[in-house]
């Protein structure tokens, strides 16, 4: 963005805002319950998050990046005829006034090659990128390997 055109930018932003409550896809998407399953060594980790779209238009997630991982990919696990498979996903649509959950056993972010060791309790920033070029920075909480769900503190820490 050129610093010489603040008025024009403001005008453009104003025009875009006039079209809806939120101008960009990233601005109308709200992320919650973001967490990462930390695995030992440099094994690829899964990233999970719930994305809610508060706008009147759908939003399309088409990528993600982080300074903590050399590679972040959108993947989907599936189970057909008893076989577990993983496939790469190019885009994931979040319907207007709807939500999509990236959860274990389904859609997830595959996080590869950590630039520094990530341990349970750390917060990792991952930027979610949308089809219109907008980005949403989200804080993901690193959780122990044996965590089942976002509300679960990780099996090792609570005994039954």
């Amino acid at each position, binding site marked *: 963005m050129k610093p010489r055109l603040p008025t024009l930018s403001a005008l453009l932003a104003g025009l875009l805002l006039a079209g809806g409550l939120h101008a960009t896809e990233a601005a109308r998407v709200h992320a919650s319950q973001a967490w990462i*399953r930390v*695995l*030992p*060594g440099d*094994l*690829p*980790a*899964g990233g999970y998050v719930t994305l809610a779209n508060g706008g009147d238009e759908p939003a399309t997630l088409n990528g993600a990046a982080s300074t903590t991982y050399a590679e972040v990919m959108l*993947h989907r*696990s599936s*189970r057909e005829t*008893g*076989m*577990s*498979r*993983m496939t790469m996903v190019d885009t994931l649509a979040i319907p207007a006034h709807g939500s999509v959950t990236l959860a*274990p*056993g389904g859609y*997830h972010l*595959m*996080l*590869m090659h950590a630039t520094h060791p990530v341990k349970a309790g750390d917060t990792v920033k991952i930027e979610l990128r949308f089809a219109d070029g907008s980005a949403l920075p989200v804080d993901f909480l690193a959780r*122990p*390997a*044996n*965590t*089942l769900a976002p509300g679960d503190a990780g*099996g090792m820490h609570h*005994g*039954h």
Partner: protein
Amino acid sequence: MLDGMSLGNSCTKPARLARLCLWPLLLAGILLLAACQRDAAMPWRLTDIGGHMPDLDFSLTDDHGKPVTGADYRGKVVLLYFGYTHCPDVCPLTLAQLHVVMQRLGPLADGARILFVSVDPARDTPQVMHAYVNAFDPRAVGLSGTPRAVEALSKRYRSAFTREPDKGDGQYEVSHSSAIYLFDRTGKARLLATPATSQDDLVHDLHLLLDPGIQP
């Protein structure tokens, strides 16, 4: 004739009584037999594979680098699951679920072992497997081996795995069967679960397999 009749009558009475008394005894006997006949009386919630799959047998290396066979796990209830450590989603989810199941079993869980068999022999060394399984549960054992040994075990349980094409950076995925096989303490294949099986059902059936008071 009369004598005969009276004789006959006096004979029928105790005989009838005896028969009446024998019926409940017989019934109890039948019920006992049915109870002894395994499976028939066991209220399994998982898929019963008793008699349909061979006993636990393999020749692999555990996560301490020690050669092990199926016989080394006799005396333990075994949960056998195929996967690989570079699997970031489904394998950790399944192992985390099994960990919670083990926790719910309390001290009984010490009588069970989760055997996580790697279908990625090229990357999963005993060292990698050790760190991996212990991140989930202290009763989990990571087994690796030669491609031939892993394939033999996989085939034995009609399981399958396929190494998907390289993504160009040396990274690849392995598609694999998601079944969890349960063996009793004598190494007999008993039950089949999937990652979709509820924890309650797994806990229920493992209780039956583990409780020394119950002889499945």
